[in-house]
């Protein structure tokens, strides 16, 4: 045996008991969220009528599809230690803008393209201001949140903008292989962004920047460029979510997506994405989104007053953060 392999073994030398205990906690840590979700799902299936039915499952997935899409990009944003409050406004503006352009040009495709471009522009402005002008992300996106919401109201004169072209509605309501299109789009987002995060330089650099921006820069990461890309892509996906939402509601509504950004961030945090940056996983985010959706869905089925739903959502988020904190503390000791 060489010296160095002896040293490596020395470092891992362990009694069976401690190893078993460590392994146990590791499993609990890694799968706690999924276990919670499965337990929640089982309890609800057994206790709430209609919960475990195909129609309700499809409805549940449909209801989380917007949050699901944007959670993917928000995951990148949080992972790089940034923050984006403007996505809710972008959702509203994109829906309105798409409807207006589609009506004016008579082409849904042009409306969609214009709306996605507008989303990209919002994201680019966010990213450029944050990365290049070094202005705090919270402040920057708070400002764009207000501005973009304002644009949505101004361009729609405060009214819902209906679309005359029937083709527009298929986007939100058509089914492929038994699942609605928005659900497919969300699934595609999970796959694409999951691969981006784990398998590409872009994803790894995002996590590195979140872990330590200065060290990342010195290691040759194009920090500014990555940050701008993160926000730009987030703008596009938020716009996509807005278009799909408008299609489902058959009109672009300027007050759509209020509080959306917080739901998205909650889902991410629930899914174990660290607000301190550097830690994120797509499986966590998926489970986070599903937990949010499941709770919401069950509360509706049980006819719980919408006002109380706020309480429940907030409580769940708080518990999730506490669990995370406890986990970290145990690891530190």
């Amino acid at each position, binding site marked *: 045996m060489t010296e160095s392999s002896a040293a490596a073994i020395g470092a*891992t030398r362990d009694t069976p008991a*401690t190893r078993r205990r460590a392994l146990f906690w590791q499993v609990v840590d890694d799968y706690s969220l999924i276990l919670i979700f499965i337990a929640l799902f089982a309890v609800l299936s057994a206790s709430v009528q209609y919960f475990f039915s195909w129609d309700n499952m499809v409805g549940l997935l449909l209801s989380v599809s917007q949050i699901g899409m944007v959670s993917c990009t928000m995951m990148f944003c949080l992972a790089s230690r940034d923050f984006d409050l403007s996505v809710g406004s972008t959702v509203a503006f994109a829906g309105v803008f798409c409807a207006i352009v589609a009506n004016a040009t008579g082409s849904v495709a042009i409306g969609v393209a214009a709306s996605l471009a507008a989303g990209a522009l919002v994201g680019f402005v966010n990213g450029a201001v944050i990365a290049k002008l070094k202005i705090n992300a919270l402040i920057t996106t708070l400002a764009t949140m207000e501005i973009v919401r304002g644009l949505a109201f101004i361009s729609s004169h405060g009214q819902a903008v209906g679309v005359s072209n029937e083709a527009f509605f298929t986007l939100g309501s058509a089914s492929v292989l038994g699942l609605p299109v928005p659900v497919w789009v969300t699934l595609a987002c999970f796959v694409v962004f999951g691969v981006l995060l784990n398998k590409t330089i872009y994803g790894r650099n995002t996590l*590195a920047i979140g872990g330590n921006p200065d060290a990342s820069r010195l290691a040759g990461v194009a920090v500014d460029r990555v940050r701008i890309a993160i926000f730009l892509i987030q703008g596009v996906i938020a716009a996509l979510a807005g278009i799909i939402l408008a299609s489902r509601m058959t009109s672009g509504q300027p007050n759509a997506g209020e509080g959306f950004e917080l739901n998205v961030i909650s889902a991410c945090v629930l899914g174990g994405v660290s607000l301190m940056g550097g830690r994120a996983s797509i499986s966590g985010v998926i489970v986070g989104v599903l937990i949010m959706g499941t709770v919401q869905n069950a509360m509706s089925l049980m006819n719980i007053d919408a006002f109380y739903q706020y309480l429940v959502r907030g409580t769940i988020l708080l518990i999730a953060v506490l669990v995370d904190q406890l986990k970290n503390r145990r690891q530190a000791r």
Partner: protein
Amino acid sequence: MTDAPRLEFRHIGKSFPGVRALSDVGFSVRAGSVHGLLGENGAGKSTMMKILGGEYIPDEGEVAIDGRAMDFRKAADAIDAGVAVIHQELQYVPELSVMENLLLGRLPTRFGLVDRRRALAWTRERLDALGVDLDPRAKLKALSIGQRQMVEIVKAILRDAKILALDEPTSSLSHRETEVLFRLVRDLRAQGKAMIYISHRLDEIFELCDAATIFRDGRKVADFDTLEGVTRETLVQRMVGRDIGDIWGYRPREHGDIRLSVKNVSGRAVQQPVSFEVKAGEIVGFFGLVGAGRSEIMRVIYGADRRLTGDVAVDGQPVKPSQIRDAIRHGLVLCPEDRKEDGIIGVRSVSENINISARRNHLVAGLFVNDRVEAKTADGYIDRLRIRTPHRRQEIRLLSGGNQQKAVLSRWLAERDLRVLIVDEPTRGIDVGAKNEIYNVLYELAGRGVAVVMISSELPEVLGVSDRVIAMCRGRIVAQFSRDEANEANVLAAALPEGASATPTPAR
């Protein structure tokens, strides 16, 4: 003295997931003595100090003070018991001033508002009494690492602790700061404090310590009641478990054409233009006192800081100013001085930290990260530099300081077309055995034609490793020596500011 020792560790054991950091370790420290703690990187020294400081709770065993077993549950418990630990990774509040840091939590709360003038006078008086040259109003983030360390030490002294532990306090101190520290430690010993002193610099151990304990792989391997008559070789042998022989292990090499050429380069922190050249296969050591501008000029050359004037070329091809990525494309890289701030990405794995830059060279289909190659690269360096980690997926912040340093160095060794390697204090916080390994890596790279620039504040290291020595002082290159010409006296004399005698200038 027949009484119980002031401080005693009894059968301490501590495990982390996948790592047995300490097993059944015990030793004791007398009042009025300085006890050296030695061991390789990852041997468990800092872990022991965190247990003493109440930050970790041991799995087995106990800490006893004056024969009484303590049960520290949190840092405050240890402070109350008269223990002050100055950790390797400093904990301070960067936005606060020296004064506020020193007074943090020490102001009687019933006074309500702070009387700034009185606090200032008090702080100044204490600093003067201790012979520490610091502006009480300076914000900590504006100080050099060494100065921040002094603040921590003064804080512990002011707390009037009876047990004081210093975990690698001198790794980033200037000569003068080190002298001040040594004087403080001797004073404290005379006052009857019990002290633990951790360092990888054996000279300091011999100079300062009355007794010593050596750790290896989380176990105690040797205890010395006195260092009288103990040789350096003995200590090294017990620490590393083998004979190292000549630590420098220098072998002469052929030098090729000019690889790195720096002409009239200046930046905001280095006003006067600097020029020098390094040949392929040559190792050039930059010596200077802390604050001489060595790190600053290297950062400008690399592109980390803005280049105001001048040209940098690698193999005759110009490197764009202020663009790190262009420097890396030319094979010019920098391994930074401040490991924690600029080097490691703490929450990412060892493997990520090693592969972050080089991965662009082996993408699958030009897009996807090649996990197989990266695993092999990471495992290769973990093995070769003996980076002590349970596996390559461990978060790098959980490694011991010296092992983090090795991982950061590996990042650049993994570059495919490395031409110029600038290393800033590459062996800071690294144990003797690993130092030797790092020198060998530098020789090997130079042997392959890499131009190596090494900044170091340790003169013996500069003299032992370099083919050529450049001395810097106050932002200027003041002298150059070939390996044969250079010796302690002439290099140090050149690096000292004019008019100064053997006492160097304070750090900036």
